[in-house]
């Protein structure tokens, strides 16, 4: 009996855009079938500031190809951690992640 191990290599991606009616948002991402590492940056506001790490941590291990699921994870992290996003939305972040993996 043969066993095949399919190794998926980690890929880097990035995207930067001014979100509609909002601020500049950059995404840097490392992923294979799931998100390994992600960094959000830009001139937006997140209150409290630690909320950005809560959002990034929540995205680790999730499927980067499912924009809807990504958006739900971000919305849930925002709600759970009482985060206020100003100049960007969970949808903006999810779309920019999709752009980064294209």
């Amino acid at each position, binding site marked *: 009996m043969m066993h095949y191990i399919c190794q998926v290599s980690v890929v880097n991606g990035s995207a*930067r855009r001014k979100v509609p009616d909002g601020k*500049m948002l950059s995404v840097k991402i490392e992923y294979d079938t799931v998100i390994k590492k992600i960094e959000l940056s830009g*001139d937006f*506001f997140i*209150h409290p500031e630690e909320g950005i790490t809560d959002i990034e941590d929540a995205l680790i291990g999730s499927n980067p190809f499912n924009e809807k699921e990504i958006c739900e994870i971000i919305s849930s992290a925002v709600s759970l951690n009482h985060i206020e996003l100003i100049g960007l939305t969970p949808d903006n972040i999810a779309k920019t992640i999709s752009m980064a993996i294209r």
Partner: protein
Amino acid sequence: MNKWRFLPIQSNNAYMNMAIDEAISDSVREGSSYPTIRFYTWDPSAVSIGCFQSLKDEVDTERCNELGIDFVRRKTGGGAVYHDSNGEITYSIIGKQELFPTGIIDSYKYICQFIISGLLKVGITAEFSPINDIVVEGKKLSGNAQTRKDGVLLQHGTILYDLNIRRMFDVLKVSKEKISDKAIKNVEERVTMVRKYSDISLADLYITLLAGFSEKMDCEEGALSKKELKKATEVAPNYRSASWNFSR
């Protein structure tokens, strides 16, 4: 009416400027200092970036080093600002959150109205433009940024006095094609400065901006306490550190 303290305009390096805000925030939080407004300039000139920005993406740090320009990450969000020593005034307003409207945009508007009142004394009719700008005839004259930590609100703002757009492009990371006459013209179409409307000196602009605040608030001149100065001196190296400035 709550009593406020104002600190006369001071010039510091970027790291000390940020450290002073942290020290004041601590003393305001524990109730040992009044809520405070301070105006300041940056010596040497500096670039500050918002707390969520990537320094590598936004700032040509090598060029900054060549030109002797500091760079620092702020505790507040928002965008990169070039603080020319003679070309802008920065303010910080620090007070317990209950002194300000609860909503973030409302609190920006509330604080910006003091700056707008001051500008009106110079003959400049400015207005608040959400999220965080003050504009004159649709052009940005002032950018503002806020953080709230453990019950204390800190708002930074910059008031452009005489912006050197070429130097700004020199230190902020923009593509080479953007450093063109056309790009500079584009900036001039979006950004304005006090010197376009008034011959007022930077020193007098400070006095006028302060009046915009002090006429509406119970405000008395003060100085940093020994404790604040000690704390600021202690934490200033944190703002100089690569681990803070390159954290994103």
